[in-house]
């Protein structure tokens, strides 16, 4: 038995009890405050005076983040009592993947950006491949079906189905798509200085490069350290394989190719890939020799500030804000690398990109839908296009009004969705997914035959 308290003098004993009562009261008050705070947090925002925090997760892209912050401020103004919190992380070094996992695990995100999974993420059951990324969330029933939301009427249904559809549902809003493969930024003034036009065939592109080289100008710049030279190979490959197909066939062409690879009736060693690789090498010989050491983090800035050299930059069309921040005076243009010698086949290749999804764990789904509806309003969406340089996914809006998008605006009508790679099992060699541009000459030292043979063998081994 503890005798210490009873041994205290009566006044001290009383003081101690009074202290204990005070502590209990303080704890009770704190608990009440926390409980009332939690009640306010779990409110859906419909009640007057209630406070709600809507959390948006988005990867760092300067233009997109700036727009989202402005949109959030406008949304807060239109919805008194609502605070919109933006969580962001760069995609570099898998930081975005980490943030996504944390937000989903803590069930603390209401609207989340995801890369559009496309239909290729759902491989047939005979492959025994499990979907990854957003597709894994879709198949696990962790994303809200947005198909019947009124704001979805603003978007092209077929395009949304292809990007983020599954079993009749649409599990996100694909809000941005970019030219990713064969995407070329160019300096309009530099081309004009040498009386050159934007090429419409592959041979014209090579001729432009040859002319520039003869004038002492290095034609092409790229972040070779991060594999951006591969954009040339993939650009040529997309247009070559889609030649003669309507744009709407791109999902079918991808699926047919993936099936043929899996069934081993096609391989990386086929003549078509040899031809594509030969054309790649013809173009890459005009690349800056030191490009292999240039990181994507610095490439757009370095290119933008060298006004009299490097007319062409291999980079995705998402980088307009970065380039223009580095050199606001640059007269910037953009075009798709013509990958074949038939101009009609050289259509724009777009890649579905940022897709807003609403996790089923969101505590504020109604408010999340209101935010998406607000985002999708044509006025706001047009600002989004201007800020990001995205190709529009709303049929009613075809032109963002950006000067560098003049070529894209004129040529996007027949754009097709970028072809996806054959299905590759987890753990397969990277060579199985296609040629390794780090090793292919002139960046690396391996010949076309070596590279394609290695890829073909790796794929054969992977699907054995």
């Amino acid at each position: 038995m503890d005798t210490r308290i009873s041994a205290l003098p009566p006044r001290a004993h009383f003081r101690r009890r009074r202290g204990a009562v005070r502590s209990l009261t303080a704890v009770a008050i704190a608990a009440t405050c926390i409980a009332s705070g939690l009640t306010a947090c779990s409110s859906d925002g419909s009640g007057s005076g209630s406070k709600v925090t809507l959390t948006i997760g988005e990867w760092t892209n300067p233009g997109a983040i700036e727009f989202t912050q402005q949109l959030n401020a406008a949304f807060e103004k239109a919805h008194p009592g609502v605070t919109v919190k933006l969580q962001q992380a760069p995609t570099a070094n898998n930081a975005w993947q980490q943030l996504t996992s944390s937000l989903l695990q803590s069930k603390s995100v209401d609207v989340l950006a995801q890369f559009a999974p496309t239909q290729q993420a759902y491989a047939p059951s005979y492959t025994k491949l499990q979907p990854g990324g957003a597709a894994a969330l879709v198949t696990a029933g962790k994303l809200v079906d947005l198909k019947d939301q009124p704001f979805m009427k603003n978007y092209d249904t077929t395009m949304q189905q292809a990007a983020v559809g599954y079993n009749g549902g649409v599990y996100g809003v694909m809000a941005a798509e970019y030219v990713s493969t064969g995407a070329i930024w160019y300096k309009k003034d530099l081309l004009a200085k040498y009386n050159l036009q934007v090429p419409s065939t592959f041979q014209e592109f090579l001729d432009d490069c040859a002319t520039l080289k003869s004038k002492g100008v290095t034609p092409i710049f790229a972040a070779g350290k991060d594999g951006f030279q591969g954009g040339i190979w993939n650009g040529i490959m997309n247009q070559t394989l889609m030649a003669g197909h309507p744009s709407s066939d791109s999902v079918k062409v991808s699926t047919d190719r993936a099936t043929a690879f899996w069934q081993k009736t096609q391989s990386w060693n086929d003549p078509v890939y040899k031809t594509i690789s030969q054309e790649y090498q013809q173009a890459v010989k005009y690349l800056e020799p030191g490009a292999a050491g240039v990181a994507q983090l610095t490439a757009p800035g370095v290119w933008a500030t060298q006004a009299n050299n490097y007319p062409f930059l291999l980079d995705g069309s998402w980088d307009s804000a970065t380039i223009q921040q580095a050199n606001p005076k640059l007269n910037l243009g953009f075009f798709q690398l013509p990958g074949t010698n038939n101009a009609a086949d050289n259509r724009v290749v777009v890649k579905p990109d940022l897709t807003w999804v609403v996790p089923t764990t969101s505590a504020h789904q109604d408010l999340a839908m209101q935010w998406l509806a607000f985002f999708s309003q044509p006025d706001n969406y047009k600002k989004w296009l201007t800020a990001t340089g995205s190709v529009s996914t709303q049929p009613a809006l075809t032109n963002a009004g950006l000067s560098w998008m003049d070529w894209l605006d004129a040529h996007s009508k027949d754009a097709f969705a970028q072809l996806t790679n054959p299905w590759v099992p987890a753990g397969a060699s990277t060579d199985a997914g296609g040629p390794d541009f780090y090793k292919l000459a002139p960046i690396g030292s391996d010949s076309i035959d070596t590279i394609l043979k290695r890829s073909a063998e790796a794929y054969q081994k992977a699907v054995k």
Partner: protein
Amino acid sequence: MPRCLFGTPRTRRFIPWASIAIPGLGWLLFGLYPSLATIGYSFTQYSGLPGTPLNFCGLCNYTNAFTALSSTVWDAIRVSLIYVVGVTVFQNAIGMGLALLLNRRGRSYAVYRALIFMPQIFSVAVVGAIFSLIFDPFSGPLDKLLHGAFGVTSTFLGSDRLALPLVMLVNVWMFSGYSMLIYIAGLRNIPAEVYEAASLDGAGRFRLFRNMTFPLLAPAFTVNMFLTVVGSLGEYALILVLAGGQHGTQTLGIYMFTSAFNAGSAELGYGSMLAMLQFFLTLIVGGGVLWTLRRREVAL
């Protein structure tokens, strides 16, 4: 009744248990649980995204890695071993050299030691960013220096020949100061009388080092070698920031990280299997080094 600072004798009995329980709980939550979970995940096909299914597949990831699929695992193990050998040898040689040079009294030597130790306190991200800029072939000073002095250029971290040695160089630069401090502590434990006796016997500087200093540094050598081997085997952040695992820099650690956490194609199950391989590799190499050097210490 005697009163004390930490309560009654009865409550005081719980203080040691509480002292163990708090860090113990931390270890259970952040050490043991993730380790056990990693073992479990290595037998599954799992994307790693919360809420997605965890499909048990037995040894599928292990068999895929070694039989059905790729040579990537073997390549990664080979690169890891090259990295470990290179970093361990150079970091210890430089650390020991610096320790011999700077193990003197005087304020200026303290400043030198602090400067050499300083890179250790920088975060990997800062060091990675600094050296990425230094090695940039366009805006970096190293290319300009090479071009100015020898008329040659290089792509540095974009070169298949140079990327791995350069990453190893940065690793050695960052952690040599740490090795130096351990060697200095070892040097200060060697009694001065030993050197005096050897000098009287006519031993020169090289013989003093070979026959006295190096054998008597054996405990510090063992600690340094073991820490460097284990540290460099587990290193992935510096490699990721500098070279991203490209151009022949894909160690097992990098391969594990990119497999487990790559956006859009993350395979936590496969990545966990690679983490298990990394664990066994560390156990074999680190354990082997420790066992060999301990035996050497006993023999000395």
